[in-house]
């Protein structure tokens, strides 16, 4: 992958982790804190391009996505957001907080059997983030969290497309997400992720996030807000 964007001095902060790891909460808390600090900041989430959404919805609802098309259509979603949101903000000198970045595609698709080397070149158009937080959690804990908020695990997040004989969705999820976690573990070393223990209290995780971000951005005072507990939210 390419080095971080130089032009405009924008900063890119990414959050990664399996479903149910709390990364969306952490990225949202960081985004709001940066806003409160007066920083020029934008946020973007995985799988959120309005132009590609109909295709993804159609592919998932008809279960016609195979590992390769699953990989490509999500790369397309990312590319659209990268070209329309992420890159312009970075070039304008803004900070971008990404709730999932290219590593999500790499981890999920590799867990589906897509060639990791091809995946790395697929996403080569995107620069490396300045900071990538990896919210580490065991799949058994993640599945409990997910099921506390909704009735069932989804077809593709359980990897049922590559595990069609699975009877128990919950067990399939644990197996599939375990493979994703293995991929994240490899990438954590390869790309220098900052690993967060996602079972710790939210405020503690957010404190570590803000301190690391303050180091990268400069001119931000993370300690005051964290010490008083202001600026954090419950999950």
């Amino acid at each position, binding site marked *: 992958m390419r080095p971080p964007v130089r032009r405009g001095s924008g900063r890119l902060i990414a959050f990664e982790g399996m479903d149910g790891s709390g990364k969306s909460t952490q990225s949202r808390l960081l985004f709001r804190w940066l806003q409160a600090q007066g920083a020029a900041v934008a946020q973007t989430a995985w799988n959120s391009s309005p*132009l590609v959404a*109909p*295709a993804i919805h159609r592919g998932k609802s008809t279960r016609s996505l195979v590992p390769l098309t699953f990989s*490509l259509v999500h790369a*397309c979603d990312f590319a659209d957001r990268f*070209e329309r949101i992420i890159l312009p903000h970075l070039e304008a000198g803004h900070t971008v907080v990404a709730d999932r970045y290219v590593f999500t595609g790499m981890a999920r698709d590799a867990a589906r059997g897509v060639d990791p080397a091809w995946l790395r070149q697929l996403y080569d*158009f995107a620069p490396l983030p300045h900071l990538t937080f990896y919210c580490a959690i065991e799949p058994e804990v993640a599945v409990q969290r997910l099921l506390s908020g909704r009735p069932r695990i989804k077809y593709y997040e359980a990897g049922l497309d590559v595990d069609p004989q699975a009877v128990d969705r919950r067990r399939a999820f644990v197996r599939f997400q375990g493979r994703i976690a293995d991929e994240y573990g490899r990438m954590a070393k390869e790309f220098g992720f900052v690993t967060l223990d996602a079972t710790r209290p939210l405020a503690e995780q957010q404190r570590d996030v803000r301190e690391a971000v303050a180091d990268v951005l400069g001119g931000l005072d993370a300690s005051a807000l964290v010490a008083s507990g202001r600026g954090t939210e419950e999950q």
Partner: protein
Amino acid sequence: MGLLVTLEGGPGSGTAEQALLLRQSLDGEGVPADFVQPGGEDAWLVPDGQRAPEWPPASRVAPFLFAVTHLADTWHHLAAPGVAAGSIVILDRYRTTLLAHARARKLDAEWAAATVAVLRPADVAIYLRSDPVRQLDRLLRAGQALRGWQVGIDVGAARGTGFAGAFRAYQSTVSRQFDALAGPGRLLVLDGDGDPAVLQRQIHDAVITALEAVG
């Protein structure tokens, strides 16, 4: 196992017409053949009654990846079953056409080629080289309206030249990229502006030769 045959070329170069003729001639000889148009009605990427996304002018990578996804899906759902069953599956434009457009749109050629390499290669890939003036003439005679991507409107080809002029200019660029992609063993280049019957015989013979080679 069957064969994957692709007819490559710009809009109006006659790929669809020749693909249909090829299927008819193979059918007539008792050789099972299917004709698949990746942009056809069976594509799930574009829901019924809707058109492909209207990409913003600055978009380069996303439209390309959308097209790669589309071809991968077409291969998996529409072409692979036929090839596995022993048919000759004829695709109206595939990897080479996509790459020619990607290069004309100034995408990183090496990256685009490495990305497209994931798609199953054709057993026989034929490029119908055509003069953009003839291409435009065929499209207009067929009553087809020119689409933005065909005239390179998103890469600024239409500035000050009108749609027809932009079409000729952009398709000339695409044509040069096709030539750059051609090479021994990679792409059979035929004259798309020649006698259609002669062209059909050349295509037919190339496919039969490939079929005999695989036994």
